[in-house]
C-alpha cells in the first residue's frame, strides 16, 4: 500500500505520526470528556499533576514529586517554570482553580464523586499544592492521574471548561472540523527533551471499517478503537501490530422499581441464565472476555478468583430461582438497547436468546443512542444493555454502577444501603488486606442482589504500523489514557 503519511519509507523518518482518530471532538473539555477520541486529545494537549505509564502505574507529570503526608493530605511539588501552550505560566494557582472546578458538582466533572471529597486546596507557594480530603480515599491518586484531572488555564473556566490550550507535550496547530487535528511538539513542555514526535496529524475516521482500511492502506500509522469484526484482518497483516487490552465491559441493568426485576431473585436468575461466551463470540467477534462476576480486572490485587465466577451459567438454578420468585413459567419484559452500536444490539440479541431458554421473553426496544440514554435515565425499560468502564482500575470504580442518582448506566431505582456502606468503607480503608476483605464482601452482596449483571469485557485495541514504537495500550479501564505513551512514541525505519 502506498504511504499517505509519508512516514513509512526513507532512511531518517520524519517524526510525524498519522493517527486515525475514531471521532471528531467538537469541544474539548478535559474535566468532562468521556469519549475515547476526546481523551486521546486530552492526553496529548493537556497534563495533570500525575499520569500513567505504559503498565498503568501512576507516574508524576506536572508534579515533579508528591507525598502523602497523612491519610487525607497530599502534597504536590510542581516542576519549575511550567508553561501553558500560550506561554502563560502554570503555577499552583492554576492547579487550584482546576481542582476547584473538578470538585464543583455543577461542572459535571467526570470524577466529581471523588473530587467532592476534597476538603481544601492550599497553595503555600507557586510550586506547591496541598490537597486535603474529607476522608481517606485509597484511589484518590489513581483518579487524578486520569486525563480528566488536567490543569487548565484560567481562561478555560470562563469558556465553561472548554480548552484547546493546555500544558501537555503537544500543542494544537489546526483543527479542520470533522476532518483532522494537527498537533506539534510543545517546546515549553517540562519534559520536552524526551518527546520524539515532532508532529501528530489526527485525521478523523468515524467509521470503524474506514479507519481500519486507512491503516491497512497505509494512509495512517496508528488507529484507535479497532472494530472487533476487524481484529482478524488487522492481525493477519504482518506490517501491523494489534495492541488489545480488556477495556470497558458490557452488562445488564434493570428497572427495579416495577415488575419482576424488582425481585433480586429474578435478577440473579438472569445473571445465571446468560451465556457470556456467546456474547463475546457473537457481539464482540470473540474479542473480549466473559465476566461471570463482579468486573474486577484479573490483574488487580483485589481480584478474587472464587467470587469472579459466581454467575457462571446455570440454567437449572436460574429456573428454580424464577420459580421461587413466582415466575415458574417466565414472563415477558421489555429490553432496552440501542441499534446505533452494533455490539449493544448484538449483546441484546444474544441475551434475548438465552433468557428465552429460561422462559423470559424479551421484546427488544432498539432506538438510537440519544433515545436510549433518555429512556435509560427515565427508567423507561425493564431490562437494559449497557456498556461502560470505570475511570480507574481500583475497585472503587464500582460505585459508578450501583450508587447515585438515576442514570442510564445504572439500574433504575436501585439503592442498597449495604452496598453503599461497603463502598464507602472500601475507599476510606487504606490497608490493602482489609480493603480486599471489604471488596470481597461487596462482591458477594452484588452476586446475590445483582444490581447489574456483568457480561463481557470488551477488548479495546489500538493498531499501528510496525514502524511505530513506544506506543502502548495501557491495560484495563486505563486504555483511554494510552495517549500518555505518545510522549515515548517514535517512528523508526522499517
Amino acid at each position, binding site marked *: 500500500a502506498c504511504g499517505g503519511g509519508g512516514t513509512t519509507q526513507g532512511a531518517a523518518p520524519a517524526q510525524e505520526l498519522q493517527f486515525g482518530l475514531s471521532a471528531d471532538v467538537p469541544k474539548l473539555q478535559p474535566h468532562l470528556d468521556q469519549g475515547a477520541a476526546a481523551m486521546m486529545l486530552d492526553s496529548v494537549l493537556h497534563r495533570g499533576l500525575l499520569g500513567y505509564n505504559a503498565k498503568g502505574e501512576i507516574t508524576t507529570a506536572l508534579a515533579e514529586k508528591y507525598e502523602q503526608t497523612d491519610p487525607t493530605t497530599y502534597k504536590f511539588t510542581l516542576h519549575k517554570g511550567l508553561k501553558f501552550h500560550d506561554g502563560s505560566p502554570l503555577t499552583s494557582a492554576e492547579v487550584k482553580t482546576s481542582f476547584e472546578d473538578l470538585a464543583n458538582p455543577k461542572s459535571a466533572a467526570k470524577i466529581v464523586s471523588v473530587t467532592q471529597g476534597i476538603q481544601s486546596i492550599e497553595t503555600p507557594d507557586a510550586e506547591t499544592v496541598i490537597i486535603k480530603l474529607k476522608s481517606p480515599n485509597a484511589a484518590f491518586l489513581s483518579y487524578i492521574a486520569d486525563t480528566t484531572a488536567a490543569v487548565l488555564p484560567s481562561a478555560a473556566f470562563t469558556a465553561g471548561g472548554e480548552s484547546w490550550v493546555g500544558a501537555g507535550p503537544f500543542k494544537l496547530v489546526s483543527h479542520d472540523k470533522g476532518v483532522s487535528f494537527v498537533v506539534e511538539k510543545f517546546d515549553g513542555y517540562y519534559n520536552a527533551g524526551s518527546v520524539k514526535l515532532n508532529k501528530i496529524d489526527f485525521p478523523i475516521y468515524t467509521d470503524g*471499517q474506514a479507519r481500519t482500511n486507512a491503516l491497512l492502506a497505509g494512509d495512517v500509522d496508528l488507529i484507535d478503537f479497532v*472494530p472487533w469484526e476487524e481484529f*482478524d484482518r488487522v492481525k493477519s497483516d504482518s506490517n501491523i501490530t494489534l495492541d488489545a487490552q480488556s477495556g470497558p465491559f458490557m452488562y445488564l441493568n434493570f428497572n427495579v422499581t416495577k415488575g419482576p426485576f424488582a425481585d433480586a431473585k429474578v435478577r440473579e436468575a438472569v445473571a445465571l441464565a446468560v451465556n457470556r461466551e*456467546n456474547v463475546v463470540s457473537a457481539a464482540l467477534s470473540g474479542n473480549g472476555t466473559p465476566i461471570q462476576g463482579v468486573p474486577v480486572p484479573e490483574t488487580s490485587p483485589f481480584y478474587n478468583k472464587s467470587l469472579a465466577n459466581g454467575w457462571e451459567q446455570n440454567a437449572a438454578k436460574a429456573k428454580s430461582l424464577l420459580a421461587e420468585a413466582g415466575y415458574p413459567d417466565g414472563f415477558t419484559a421489555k429490553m432496552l438497547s*440501542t*441499534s446505533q452500536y452494533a455490539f449493544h444490539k448484538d449483546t441484546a*440479541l444474544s441475551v434475548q436468546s438465552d433468557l428465552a431458554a429460561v422462559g423470559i421473553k424479551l421484546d427488544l426496544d*432498539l432506538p438510537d443512542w440519544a*433515545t436510549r440514554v433518555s429512556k435509560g435515565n427515565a427508567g423507561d425499560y425493564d431490562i437494559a444493555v449497557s456498556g461502560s468502564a470505570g475511570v480507574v482500575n481500583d475497585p472503587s470504580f464500582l460505585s459508578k454502577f450501583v450508587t447515585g442518582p438515576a442514570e442510564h448506566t445504572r439500574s433504575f431505582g436501585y439503592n442498597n444501603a449495604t452496598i453503599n456502606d461497603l463502598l464507602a468503607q472500601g475507599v476510606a480503608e487504606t490497608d490493602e488486606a482489609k480493603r480486599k476483605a471489604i471488596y470481597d464482601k461487596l462482591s458477594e452482596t452484588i452476586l446475590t442482589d445483582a444490581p447489574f449483571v456483568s457480561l463481557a469485557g470488551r477488548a479495546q485495541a489500538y493498531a499501528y504500523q510496525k514502524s511505530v514504537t513506544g506506543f502502548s495500550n495501557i491495560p484495563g479501564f486505563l486504555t483511554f489514557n494510552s495517549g500518555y505513551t505518545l510522549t515515548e512514541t517514535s517512528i523508526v525505519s522499517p
Partner: protein
Amino acid sequence: MTAFLKRFHEHATPLRYVALAVVVTVVAVALFAPLFAPHDPIAQDVANKLRPIGTPGHLLGTDQFGRDSLSRLIYGARIEIVVALGATLFACLFGTFLGLMGGYFGRLIETLTMRLTDVILAFPPIILALLIVTIYGSGVMTLIVVMGLLFAPNFARITYGQVVGVKHAEYVEAAKAIGAPTPRILLRVVLPNIMSPIAVQMSLTLASAILLESGLSFLGLGVVPPTASWGLMVAEGQRFMASNPDLLLAPAIAVVATILSFSVLGDALRDWLDPRSRKVSRPKAAALTEVRA
C-alpha cells in the same frame, strides 16, 4: 388470469419467464416460509457462527449468532415483500394521484399538491424516516407508511411532468369533447399514456424501498430484530464484509435477483401497455435481412 398469461406470453422472452418465475418463487417462499426453511430463523447456535456458504446443514452458511442464513433469507422474504411492495404501492397510488391532480388541473390544485410534495421532498429521507420512526416506533406498518410517504413525491413529480406534456394533446380534448367525466379522462386517457415512466419508477422504487429498509434496519429504525429481513441481512453483512463476505452474498443476490425480476416485469408491463411495441418485432427484422440477402 388466463387472459393475463396469454397477454404475457405475447410479449414473453425467456428472460421474462425467468423473472416471472423468480417473483412467483419469492412470493411463494414468503407465504410458506415455515415449509421451506430448514431451521428456525432466530435460533442461535453461536458455536457454529459465521460458517461459509455450502456448509452441510447450512446451505448458505450462518451469521454471527450461528443462525441459518438460508432460513433467515426465506423468512426475510416475507418482510421484504410486505414492506417493499406495500410501500411501493402506497407511494405509487398516492404520488400518482397527486401528480395527476396537480398536472391536470393546474392552478390552485397544482400549488397544493405539488408544493406538498416539495415539502416532503425537502426533508432528507433519512431524517424524515428517523423522525417518524423515533416518534412512532419501528415496525412493519410504520415502515410502509414512512417509505410510502417518502417515495410518493417521486411518483408525483414524474406523473406531473408527464401530465403537463400530455394534457393538451388532441386525444385528451377529444375525450373531453365526448363528455367523459374528468376522473375517467385521467384514468383512461391520460394515465395509460404516461404509464411507462411510472412503471419504471415502480421498479426503481421497489429497489429503493429494499435499500432504505436496509438502511433503516441498519440504523435500528427498520424491522425489530431478531426478525429477519433482507435489508437487515445486507446491513449486517456489510459489517463482516471484509472478513466474511459470504454473509453479504446471499441476501445481496436475493435482493438483486428480485429487483432485476421486477424490473424485467416492469418492462414487460411497459411493452404491454404500449401498443406500438406490443408485437415483438425481432423476427421481422430477421426476415428483412433474409430478403436482402
